């Protein structure tokens, strides 16, 4: 998805993991996605560079839809749709 499309998404849950280093954002994503329903969208905020690659791979293995990443000033927004 394009950045503009990602930014226009209605997000059902935001997980702010900017205060943690790897593996904090990944674990936060795993914990928090349990609290939303299939088809709902979750965004993970992370300032950890490795998370940009880690979460998409994890999502693919777990059957979630990785929708894309938006780069903000000093952090990333990673969008997932629960499978």
């Amino acid at each position: 998805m394009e950045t503009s499309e990602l930014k226009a998404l209605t997000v059902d849950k935001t997980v702010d993991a900017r205060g943690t280093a790897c593996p904090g954002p990944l674990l936060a994503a795993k914990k928090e996605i349990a609290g939303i329903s299939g088809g709902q969208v979750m965004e993970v905020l992370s300032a950890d560079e490795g998370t940009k690659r880690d979460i998409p791979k994890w999502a693919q293995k777990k059957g979630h839809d990785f929708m894309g990443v938006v780069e903000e000033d000093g952090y990333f927004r990673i969008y997932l749709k629960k499978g």
Partner: protein
Amino acid sequence: MNITSEGPLKSRLCHENEKIKCSILKYQLFTNKNKIIMAQQKMTLALFSGSVDKLTAAGVILSGAAADDMDVDIYVLLMGARAFKKENIEEKGTLAELPHLQDEFFASLERLKVNTWIQFFKDAKELTNVKIHICGLAGKIWGGEKLEDFNELADDICGIGEYITSAQEADVHLFI
């Protein structure tokens, strides 16, 4: 394949139908098999080291396995058993690698808000099936004969045969 007396078209259709059924069955078996494998994926970790740098690395790897819902068996061997003794739980610990950079290492962990190794282990136990087995010999070396001599993370005291069996069965096997 069903052979009918109603001509080649129906026969061909039945044949195609069987092929589709077979494909669906194969797919189901494949996906079911994958699900079984996913559910049973297991990591076995031989944790020999009791130094805080290696314990932290073990904690990070353990977190990755937990995020992946793997079952994890940790076998705490010789030097590792000391770190799991009840009285050592608050110990800051030492580094196995680059000990002269210890202050820099600890300062970086604090600045980056990295969990302590013990917190990584606790979190992973909450997320997935992690069992921590203390090697009986290792425990004795450090004065720990019974499970209550170790911190609450330890699940049992075991012999080396159990570790070998677990390693043989594991999808991922690590020695730290």
